[in-house]
C-alpha cells in the first residue's frame, strides 16, 4: 500500500461545453474553453512549477513561478491565470523561464527557515518540492537581511499550528477560507514585506471566527499551517479512502496512516458529496476511537446495582442468548426486540434487523431515525413514492432560490453548508424559515432575502400559507401539475389552501410572522427560477412533523420544482447512516426497501432466503417499546450503537422503561448512559476498524474501509452474527460484501449494488438496478416513483404542548458545529475546546424579567422534569423562546422534553416544550441522583487474582 496521491491541476475545471485545442511543449491537447494553460498542461501530465495555485481555488497569480511563453505573444504570462486559446503554441520550459523561476525561488528561500530536515512537513512541502523542481542549488542573498524567520507560533487551535516564520504569503489559506469554507476568518494584514496571514483581528485561531474546518491547512503549501499530528507522529506512508462517520453529508476522506496509527484525515477531492472539503468533526475529531474510556472487553452482570464483570465473548454471548430465550419462553415471542444504529454500517443494520425478524421471530426493530427523520420517510413516500430526498448535493450549484426550513446547515451539515454558501455568493436567493436567526441568515457576503422567524410548532401553518399565496396569486405551474400529479387531488388541495383561513394574514396569530414577508417569500420561491427546499429536524421533530413534510412536498409540486437539477425536496439527515438504516429495514412495519411486513409476496422472498417464517404483524416503535416495558409486556432489548437514554425525550419515562427490562444488551464504544441500565455490554468497533457502507442524505452508498484491526477484537456485524448463531439462527458471513450481496438480492432498489461496483465508481446513489446501473442522482425525472404525485391536505393542528402561566416560554433544541448529537464521540476529543457545556440561550427581555444575568446558572422546568445549566443572553432567539443543545449528559436536556410526538410516526416533539426558567444555584435533585446512579452503575469489578 502507498499514499493515494491526487493530481493537483492547479486551477478548477471549466464547466464549458465548447472545446479548444492548443499545443503545449509540442504536444496537442483539447480542453474546455476557460481552462487555464496550467491545467491544460497538467492534463498532458506536464506539471508547471507553481506555489500560489491549487485546483480547489480560483487562480490568483501572485507567486510568478508558473510563467510560460506563448509563441507570437510578448512577455511571460502566468499559466494559472491565462486561459487557453485556439491554436496557441505554449512553451513551459525555456532558458529564460528557468532563470526567472530560479530567481523567484531564491527570494522565497532566502526568507524561509532552512530547517527542512526537522520540519513537520518534510517530504510534504510544495516549497521544498519547487526548490528541487526549478533546480535551486544555492541562495545568493544570505540571511543577514531583514526576514521573518524568527516569528512565533500560534498553537491555540487544538488540531493545527500556525508557524508564521514559514509563511510565503501565497494567500491560499485566505482564499480557501473564503471560497471553499465561506467563513472569511483570515486576512492578510500589513503591506509589502510586513504582510502576514492573520485570523480575525490579529487574534489567536481558537478565539477567532475560524471554525477549524481545515481547508486552509489543506491549501497551505508549506508547514505554516500544519496538523499537530504531523509533529507528533511524522508524515504518513500509506492511505486508504473511506467515509466520515459523523453526519449525513458523508464526506470522503483519505485516512493517512503510519503503520496502524492514523496520522490525519484528508478530505478527498473525488468525494462526490464533499468535493475535497471537510468540517472540524470529520477532519480532526477522530481521537475518540483511541480514547481511554473505550471498553474493549465484553462485560455482564445480573443486576444493574452490581458492578460489571469482564468476561470472554463466548460467555457474554451465551448469557445473552440464554436470557433472551428465557424471556421469550416466559413472556412470549414478542417480549423482546432490538434497536439498530444510524451510526453503524448498512450491513450491520441489516444484520440486526435480520436477527430480530428471523432470530427473535418478531418485528420489534426500530432505529434512532425514529427520533429524527421518520416523518421524512412517511411524508415523502405518501406524496412522491420514495422515502428519501430527491437530489444530489451537486444540484445546489444549479439552484436559484433556496428555501431552508428548520435546518441549520452551517452547524449541522457544515460541508453542505459551505457548498450552499458558495452558491449564495454567486447570486442565488435565500429564504429561511426558522425561529432562530441562524448563521446562514446573515453571514459574510450572505444575506437572506427573507427570514420568517416563526413561533416553534407552527411550520404547517406557515408552509400552507406559502401554498395559499402560490395558489391564490396564480403562481401554480399548471403544466407540471397536469402532467405529473393527480389533477383531482390537486384541485381539492388548491381549494383547501386557497381558503382564507390559510392566508398569511389569518395565520399570523399562530406564527407571529409578518404576512408581507410570507407573501414575498412565496413569490420569490415560485417565480425566482429553480427553487429548492432543504429542511432538517426543525421540520420533523414536531407533533405535525409528517404533515409539514407533506406540505413541503405539495409546495414543490405546485411550483413544478421537482424532477430536475437545481430544485427538489432535500431532507438534511442527521447521522451518517440515517438514510441507510431506514433503507435496510430498521422500521418495525417495513422490510428492507420499505415494504410492509404484511405483504405476503415480499415476506416470502425473505423467508425463502433466510429459511424461517416471518411475523406479518408490525412491531413496536421505540416509544411504544418503553410504554410496553413499563406495562410489563416487553422485557428484553438489544441496542446497537445508540444511546436512547440520552437521546430520547422524557428521560424519566425512558429510564422507567429501561429499568423494567430483565435483559438489556448494549453494544457500544463506551459505557454510554443507556448502559447504566444494561446487563450485558458488548464492545463496539469504530468506523476505522471495519469494512462496510454508509448511505448519506443524497441516497449515496459509500464504502468505509478498515484501516486498523478492531481494538475490541470484532467488527460490530461479527458480534451480531455470534449472537444470532447462539440463538440458533445461523449466520456464516465472512465479509460484509456478502451481506451487501444478500441485500441486493432481496431489495429491488439495490439490485445493482456490490462492492466491486462501489470500488470502481467510488459511490452510487440508489435506486441502482437494471434500469439505472450507475445509480440515480436525481429522482422523479419525467414522473413520480408512485405514478402521479399526490397532493395531501395539511390542516394546521396546534401542538398540545402549550405555554401558560406556569410554563410561559417555549424551549427549542438544536446542535452546534463542533459537537455531534449526544456527544459520546466529540466530547472525547479536543472539540470540547469550542463547546465545553450546553447552555441556554435566552432573550435579554426574558432574562431581565427573571433577574438572570449572562453566565448565571438557571433552572429549566417543564411538565416532564427539570434540569439546570448556564444561561447565555442572546438576540438570536425571539422573546418568549429559549434554546439549548443536548450534547452533554450532565445537562440532560431531555429530562425536560415531553413525550408528545408526531401523529404518524411517533417522532418526538423535541422542538417545542413549554418551560419556565428561574435563577438557580446548582444542579437539580434529578441531576444529582442521576450522577450517583451513573457512578455506581459504571463500576467494573477488579479482575480476580490469577
Amino acid at each position, binding site marked *: 500500500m502507498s499514499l493515494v496521491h491526487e493530481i493537483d491541476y492547479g486551477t478548477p475545471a471549466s464547466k464549458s461545453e465548447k472545446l479548444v485545442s492548443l499545443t503545449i511543449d509540442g504536444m496537442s491537447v483539447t480542453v474546455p474553453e476557460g481552462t487555464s494553460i496550467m491545467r491544460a498542461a497538467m492534463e498532458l501530465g506536464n506539471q508547471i512549477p507553481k506555489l500560489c495555485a491549487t485546483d480547489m481555488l480560483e487562480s490568483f497569480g501572485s507567486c510568478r513561478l508558473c510563467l510560460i511563453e506563448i509563441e507570437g505573444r510578448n512577455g511571460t504570462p502566468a499559466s494559472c491565470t491565462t486561459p487557453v486559446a485556439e491554436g496557441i503554441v505554449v512553451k513551459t520550459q525555456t532558458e529564460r523561464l528557468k532563470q526567472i523561476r530560479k530567481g523567484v525561488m531564491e527570494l522565497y528561500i532566502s526568507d524561509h527557515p532552512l530547517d527542512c530536515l526537522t520540519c513537520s512537513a518534510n517530504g510534504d512541502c510544495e516549497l521544498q518540492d519547487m526548490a528541487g523542481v526549478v533546480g535551486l542549488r544555492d541562495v545568493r542573498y544570505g540571511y543577514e537581511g531583514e526576514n521573518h524567520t524568527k516569528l512565533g507560533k500560534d498553537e491555540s487551535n487544538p488540531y493545527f499550528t500556525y508557524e508564521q516564520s514559514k509563511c510565503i504569503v501565497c494567500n491560499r489559506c485566505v482564499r480557501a477560507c473564503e471560497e471553499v469554507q465561506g467563513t472569511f476568518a483570515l486576512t492578510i494584514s500589513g503591506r509589502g514585506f510586513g504582510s502576514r496571514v492573520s485570523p480575525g483581528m490579529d487574534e489567536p485561531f481558537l478565539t477567532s471566527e475560524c471554525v477549524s474546518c481545515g481547508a486552509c491547512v489543506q491549501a497551505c503549501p508549506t508547514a505554516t499551517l500544519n496538523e499537530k499530528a504531523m509533529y507528533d507522529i511524522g508524515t504518513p506512508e500509506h492511505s486508504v479512502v473511506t467515509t466520515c462517520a459523523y453526519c449525513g453529508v458523508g464526506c470522503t476522506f483519505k485516512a493517512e496512516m503510519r503503520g496502524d496509527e492514523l496520522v490525519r484525515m484528508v478530505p478527498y477531492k473525488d468525494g462526490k458529496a464533499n468535493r475535497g472539503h471537510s468540517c472540524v468533526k470529520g477532519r480532526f475529531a477522530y481521537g475518540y476511537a483511541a480514547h481511554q474510556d473505550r471498553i474493549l472487553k465484553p462485560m455482564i452482570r445480573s443486576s444493574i446495582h452490581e458492578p460489571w464483570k469482564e468476561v470472554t465473548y463466548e460467555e457474554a454471548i451465551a448469557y445473552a442468548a440464554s436470557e433472551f430465550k428465557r424471556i421469550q419462553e416466559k413472556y412470549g415471542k414478542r417480549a423482546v426486540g432490538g434497536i439498530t444504529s444510524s451510526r453503524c454500517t448498512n450491513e450491520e443494520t441489516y444484520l440486526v434487523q435480520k436477527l430480530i425478524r428471523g432470530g427473535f421471530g418478531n418485528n420489534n426493530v426500530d432505529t434512532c431515525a425514529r427520533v429524527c427523520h421518520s416523518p421524512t420517510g412517511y411524508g415523502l413516500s405518501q406524496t412522491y413514492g420514495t422515502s428519501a430526498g430527491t437530489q444530489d448535493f451537486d444540484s445546489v450549484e444549479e439552484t436559484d432560490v433556496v428555501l431552508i426550513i428548520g435546518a441549520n446547515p452551517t452547524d449541522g451539515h457544515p460541508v453542505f453548508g459551505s457548498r450552499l454558501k458558495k452558491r449564495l455568493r454567486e447570486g442565488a436567493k435565500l429564504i429561511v424559515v426558522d425561529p432562530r436567526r441562524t448563521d446562514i441568515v446573515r453571514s459574510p457576503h450572505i444575506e437572506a432575502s427573507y427570514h420568517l422567524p416563526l413561533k416553534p410548532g407552527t411550520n404547517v401553518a406557515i408552509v400552507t400559507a406559502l401554498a395559499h399565496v402560490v395558489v391564490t396569486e396564480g403562481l401554480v405551474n399548471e403544466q407540471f401539475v397536469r402532467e405529473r400529479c393527480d389533477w383531482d387531488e390537486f384541485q381539492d388541495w388548491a381549494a383547501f389552501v386557497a381558503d382564507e383561513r390559510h392566508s398569511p394574514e389569518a395565520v399570523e396569530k399562530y406564527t407571529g410572522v409578518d404576512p408581507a414577508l410570507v407573501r414575498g417569500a412565496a413569490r420569490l420561491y415560485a417565480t425566482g427560477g429553480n427553487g429548492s427546499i432543504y429542511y432538517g429536524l426543525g421540520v420533523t421533530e414536531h*407533533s405535525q412533523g409528517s404533515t409539514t413534510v407533506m406540505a413541503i412536498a405539495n409546495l414543490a409540486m405546485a411550483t413544478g420544482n421537482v424532477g430536475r437539477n437545481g430544485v427538489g425536496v432535500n431532507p438534511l439527515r442527521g447521522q451518517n447512516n440515517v438514510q441507510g438504516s431506514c433503507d435496510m429495514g430498521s422500521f418495525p412495519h417495513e422490510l428492507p426497501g420499505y415494504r410492509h411486513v404484511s405483504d405476503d409476496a415480499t415476506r416470502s422472498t425473505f423467508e425463502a432466503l433466510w429459511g424461517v417464517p416471518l411475523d406479518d404483524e*408490525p412491531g413496536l*416503535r421505540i416509544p411504544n417499546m418503553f410504554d410496553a416495558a413499563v*406495562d410489563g409486556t416487553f422485557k428484553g432489548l438489544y441496542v446497537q450503537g445508540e444511546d436512547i437514554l440520552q437521546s430520547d425525550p422524557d428521560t424519566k419515562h425512558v429510564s422507567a422503561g429501561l429499568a423494567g427490562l430483565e435483559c438489556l444488551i448494549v453494544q457500544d464504544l463506551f459505557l454510554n448512559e443507556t448502559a447504566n441500565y444494561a446487563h450485558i455490554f458488548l464492545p463496539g468497533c469504530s468506523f476505522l476498524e471495519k469494512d462496510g457502507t454508509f448511505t448519506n442524505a443524497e441516497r449515496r452508498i459509500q464504502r468505509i474501509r478498515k484501516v486498523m484491526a478492531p481494538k475490541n477484537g470484532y467488527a460490530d456485524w461479527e458480534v451480531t452474527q455470534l449472537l444470532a448463531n447462539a440463538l440458533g439462527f445461523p449466520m456464516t458471513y465472512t465479509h460484509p460484501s456478502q451481506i451487501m450481496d444478500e441485500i441486493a438480492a432481496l431489495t429491488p432498489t439495490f439490485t445493482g449494488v456490490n462492492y466491486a461496483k462501489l470500488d470502481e465508481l467510488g459511490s452510487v446513489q440508489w435506486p441502482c438496478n437494471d434500469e439505472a446501473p450507475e445509480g440515480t442522482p436525481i429522482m422523479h425525472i419525467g414522473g413520480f416513483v408512485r405514478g402521479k404525485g399526490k397532493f395531501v391536505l395539511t390542516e394546521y393542528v396546534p401542538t398540545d404542548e402549550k405555554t401558560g402561566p406556569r410554563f410561559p416560554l417555549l424551549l427549542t433544541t438544536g446542535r452546534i458545529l463542533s459537537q455531534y448529537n449526544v456527544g459520546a464521540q466529540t466530547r472525547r476529543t479536543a472539540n470540547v475546546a469550542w463547546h465545553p457545556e450546553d447552555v441556554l440561550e435566552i432573550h435579554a427581555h426574558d432574562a431581565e424579567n427573571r433577574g438572570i444575568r449572562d453566565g448565571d446558572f438557571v433552572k429549566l422546568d417543564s411538565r416532564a422534569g427539570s434540569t439546570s445549566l448556564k444561561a447565555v443572553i442572546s438576540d438570536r432567539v425571539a422573546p418568549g423562546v429559549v434554546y439549548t443543545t443536548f450534547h452533554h449528559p450532565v445537562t440532560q436536556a431531555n429530562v425536560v422534553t415531553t413525550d*408528545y410526538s408526531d*401523529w404518524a410516526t*411517533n417522532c418526538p416533539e423535541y422542538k417545542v416544550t413549554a418551560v419556565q426558567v428561574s435563577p438557580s444555584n446548582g444542579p437539580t435533585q434529578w441531576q444529582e441522583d442521576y450522577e450517583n446512579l451513573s457512578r455506581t452503575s459504571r463500576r467494573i469489578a477488579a479482575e480476580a487474582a490469577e
Partner: protein
Amino acid sequence: MSHSTAEKLVYMANQIATAFSAQKHAEAVEATRIHIQKFWDPRMRSKIAEHIAHGGEGLSPIAKEALEGLQAAKAA
C-alpha cells in the same frame, strides 16, 4: 399527557384522526383505520380494542369509527 397506556393510545388515535380530518368523513375514517392497522403492534391494537369494548371513552368520532373497523391482531 397521561402515562397510562390506554389513555396514551386514545391520545394517539385521536391525533391520527385529527390529521386526516380535513378529508371527507368516510375517507378520514378509512385513512385512520389503515394507518393504525399498518403501524400499531398487536398488543397496542388489542388494548385499544378492549377500550372500545368498554365504550371507547375519550375517542373522537373519526377515531372511534375507524377503530371499530380494525382487524383483530394475530397471535405471535
